[in-house]
């Protein structure tokens, strides 16, 4: 087993409660533990209300856990203040679902992707222009568009800007919160491919939050299935998908709509045959 880059132990998040009527708080996340191996992807899957997004937000330090512990590269990062938080943000970044609402509409790509470094008071290596161009190239965007605004890009391209911004600080963990869910299927496939390539290039670790099991199966080596605030099943992808133990996991997998396998087989055979014919011609 490879080294663990991020570990969460017994995470709990409660909302509301207390007040004059002493209402019981709502427990959105209830005793969740996970470990992300370096250079790999751990997916948290579940339906709405399962607590997967709240768990991601705790891991990203966007909400504070009610209880539990988060470690990053062996260091306790559960509670952080000012300076320590800035250092944390240079190691853990987030890519959100809706690229347009998470990118400042008045800022150019250059301003957007260099912002994390500026906030952390760090120098932009090689100057802002060259730095931005290099980043844009890495995520498959035209570097000549570095002065453009988010609205001048398509949804898929805007999500690449979000990924570029996350990569600007050279993080070890990137938390993808439904990062490909809003994209059209052909664009989604390209962004998944990009995430996989970037991971291979620089040992990135992903915490990948998604409700789409087929997408998760493509990208994650480790999978944790969440339901009602708890992890009901977790393990390597092959185990969770091919031999699910928990009834809920089975129900979830059983409900996924499927293109008939024989139609897929026929299509692939046809495409292959045509490719061979074209090569012969």
């Amino acid at each position, binding site marked *: 087993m490879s080294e663990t880059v991020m570990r969460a132990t017994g995470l709990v998040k409660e909302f509301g409660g207390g007040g004059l009527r002493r209402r019981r708080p709502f427990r959105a996340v209830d005793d969740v533990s996970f470990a992300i191996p370096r250079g790999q992807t751990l997916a948290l899957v579940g339906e709405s209300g399962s607590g997967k997004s709240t768990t991601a937000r705790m891991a990203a330090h966007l909400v504070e856990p009610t209880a539990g512990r988060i470690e990053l590269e062996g260091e306790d990062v559960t509670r952080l203040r000012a300076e320590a938080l800035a250092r944390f943000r240079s190691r853990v970044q987030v890519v959100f679902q809706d690229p347009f609402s998470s990118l400042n509409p008045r800022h150019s790509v250059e301003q957007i992707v260099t912002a994390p470094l500026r906030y952390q008071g760090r120098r932009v290596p090689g100057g802002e222009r060259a730095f931005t161009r290099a980043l844009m190239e890495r995520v498959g965007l035209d570097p000549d568009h570095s002065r453009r605004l988010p609205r001048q890009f398509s949804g898929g391209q805007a999500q690449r800007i979000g990924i570029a911004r996350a990569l600007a600080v050279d993080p070890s963990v990137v938390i993808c919160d439904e990062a490909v869910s809003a994209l059209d299927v052909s664009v989604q496939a390209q962004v998944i491919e990009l995430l996989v390539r970037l991971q291979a290039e620089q040992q990135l670790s992903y915490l990948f939050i998604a409700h789409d099991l087929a997408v998760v199966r493509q990208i994650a*080596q480790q999978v944790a299935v969440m339901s009602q605030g708890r992890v009901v099943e977790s393990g390597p992808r092959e185990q969770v998908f091919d031999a699910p133990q928990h009834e809920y996991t089975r129900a979830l997998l059983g409900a996924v709509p499927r293109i008939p396998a024989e139609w897929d087989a026929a299509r692939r055979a046809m495409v292959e045959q045509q490719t061979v014919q074209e090569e012969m011609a």
Partner: protein
Amino acid sequence: MTALLDVRDLTVAFETPRGRTEVVRDVSFELAPGASLGIVGESGSGKSMTSLAVMDLLPPGATRRGSIRLAGTELTTLPPREMRKVRGARVAMIFQDPLSCLNPYYTVGLQISEAYRAHRPRATRREARRAAVEAMERVHIPHAAERVDHYPHQFSGGMRQRVMIAMALSGEPELLIADEPTTALDVTVQKQILDLIAEIRRDTGAGLVMITHDLAVVSEIADDVLVMQHGDVVEQGGAEQVFSRPRHPYTRRLLEAVPRIDDPLVGPGGAR
């Protein structure tokens, strides 16, 4: 046999101060009685505009051209009064977001009753209420007799979609048009709603036009498939033909891009 729905050369355009933009171009298709058609495409393909044009529910500024016949009756030249009778009574529509289609101030029972009475002017309140309970039972809402007095916010997303379907069925339509009816729902709830739609079609013989971006959903419910891109139909045919022998490069790309839950896994990284 006369087609249940026969759409010929349908074009939808928006007139803007800067000129005319066509969002649907020369779309033609036929739906046999009781059959199902899936209209698939990505965002901006014109698939939703096509279905809204059939219902004469296009947003302001949009114009349509072409012929739309429902069991032989031309809909494009019907006076608005007559078209209102067609909507709901003969053709019913189910949308993606039931919450925006339900009035939050009225109980679901009242709203289903109103839909029922709209098609049966002579029905009494009591009859309509009884029909509402029956309609809710038919779409498998548990404890329908109590739930009939609840408000939309007291229902989950899946249950709200069932309420919408109950309302849609109140006029006993020959044709259901469903625009991304399960897109906002969790996968287990999606399956329940798709099963419900299939059950209703079996029981009533209603035809179905389903608009969706999800190719796997289409493969499970549609007899025929229409693939749209940028307002054009790029491919159409029987579902098996389109899925197993796609001709248009766009259809092929789309089918290639859909992640499969059952495909063999390749490499440690996962993605192919």
